[in-house]
């Protein structure tokens, strides 16, 4: 029996992909403008215009606002917002919608004024939300207190050392050093991580992602239509996609040392793609905090339970390693607007196209995984070049 959705393998392609013109501190643009700036860049990337788009998906801003700003007359809207992994889900939903003939060309947009807070609704969990009722009264300092809550348990169960955790940002900075768009590029050591301010022990400042302004957008269409377009860049095919979710409060998660949502979404994506782990050339795992790629490597099945810290320590994910990971520098060093998932997809697309600043040789298959909230949601995409079809 074939995997669920196996018939959609390679059915749609990412034909346009681009980030906002600037990244970092962009005080002269609102969050919605960052969506639009990225969208126009992505359309220019594939030689299309807003008039060619009949579907819009976005998170943070409403898809109807993005469509209206750009003058798009949509026949398909997706406002799925499950945090930073939303864009992986948008791609999966568009895969279904385009393949079912509900629409032809979907624009997925992200934009956030994470640093400058221009045009952003102030972030505060509603007092009546689960987080407002069950977490906020206990004094967390936002995500740095809540996201890494399980790290000590992970250390106790699997023997991860503080040095191993600190190596995650150290290795990612090695990739960032090769990327002129990365915000932080100077090499760092484990000692530098320990010397950075303690935020929520065992988490130091350098274990935490950046807070930046920026945007990104994708243009998706059927593989068939992609072949009929005169594209300046080769299409990148969606070979598989998966998604899942669980509790939005940390105490409600099935496990503190593993992400069920990453596990289920990843399994689904890899099964649909028919790609074996050994055939994955490049990996992106959302790194809002240093431990997230540790969990992700295990939950996606690239290593066994408890093996990720040693895998990273041995250099497998570093430049020259067997499984290059977070090659843009990641949320820890490249950029992190708040919902980073779009930037993980952008780097996967660049690597498959062969246009990344820190390009890995011969990337035909790239896997990218996003997470939302404190592991409350996850989406995984398996992207491939024409050679994988």
């Amino acid at each position, binding site marked *: 029996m074939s995997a669920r959705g196996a018939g959609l393998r390679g059915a749609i392609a990412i034909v346009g992909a681009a980030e906002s013109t600037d990244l970092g501190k962009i005080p002269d643009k609102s969050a919605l403008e960052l969506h639009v700036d990225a969208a126009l860049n992505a359309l220019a990337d594939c030689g299309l215009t807003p008039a060619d788009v009949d579907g819009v998906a976005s998170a943070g801003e409403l898809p109807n606002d993005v469509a209206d700003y750009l003058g798009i007359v949509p026949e398909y809207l997706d406002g799925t917002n499950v945090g930073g992994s939303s864009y992986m889900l948008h791609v999966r939903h568009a895969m279904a919608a385009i393949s079912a003939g509900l629409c032809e060309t979907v624009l997925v947009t992200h934009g956030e004024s994470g640093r400058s807070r221009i045009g952003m609704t102030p972030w505060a969990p509603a007092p009546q939300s*689960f987080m407002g009722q069950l977490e906020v009264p206990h*004094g967390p300092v936002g995500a740095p207190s809540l996201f890494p*809550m399980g790290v000590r348990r992970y250390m106790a169960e699997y023997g991860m050392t503080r040095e191993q955790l600190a190596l995650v940002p150290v290795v990612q900075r090695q990739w960032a050093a090769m990327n002129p768009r990365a915000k932080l590029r100077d090499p760092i050591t484990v000692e530098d991580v320990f010397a950075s301010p303690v935020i929520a022990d065992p988490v130091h400042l350098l274990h935490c992602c950046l807070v930046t302004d920026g945007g990104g957008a994708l243009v998706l269409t059927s593989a068939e239509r992609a072949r009929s377009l005169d594209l300046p860049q080769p299409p990148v095919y969606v070979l598989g996609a998966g998604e899942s979710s669980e509790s939005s409060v940390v*105490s409600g998660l099935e496990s*503190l040392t593993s992400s069920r949502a990453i596990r289920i979404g990843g399994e689904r994506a890899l099964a649909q793609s028919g790609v074996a782990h050994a055939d994955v050339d490049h990996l992106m795992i959302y790194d809002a905090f240093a431990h997230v790629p540790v969990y992700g490597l295990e939950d996606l099945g690239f290593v066994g339970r408890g093996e990720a810290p040693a895998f990273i320590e041995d250099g497998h994910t570093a430049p020259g390693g067997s499984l290059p990971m977070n090659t843009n520098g990641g949320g820890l060093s490249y950029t992190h607007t708040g919902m980073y998932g779009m930037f993980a997809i952008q780097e996967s697309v660049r690597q498959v196209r062969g246009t990344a600043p820190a390009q890995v040789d011969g990337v035909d298959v790239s896997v990218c995984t996003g997470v939302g909230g404190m592991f409350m949601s996850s989406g995984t995409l398996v992207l491939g070049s024409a050679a994988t079809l």
Partner: protein
Amino acid sequence: MKPVPLPTPDTQEWFDRIDAGELTVPRCTACASFFLHPRSSCPRCGARAVELIPAAGTGVLLSFVVNHRAPAGFEAPYALGVVALAEGPRLTGIVRTDAPDRLEVDAPVRVAFEERGERRVVCFELKEAGR
């Protein structure tokens, strides 16, 4: 001023009983599952038959962070942890201790309450040996 929970109709009684100094754990009367967060139907079987059972008030500290920065009203450093209650479900709360950096995973804890105006908020204390 430290924040207090603003309950919804399905969590009101659970929080009301905390305000009265009693921690309860929701249990499904159809399949006997304990669960948290509080809700009006069972996440295991879907039955709309939920009762609140008084908790034993003990548990173990599954994991924690030590906040060195604090929101308004809180004084750093303090340990914020996830506790597995004796009944199984988990809760987040502060673990009161003079030495948060010396806490360890799996430490036995018991439930306590912090007074906040007219409300109470669940927190935890280390359960010393022999008590």
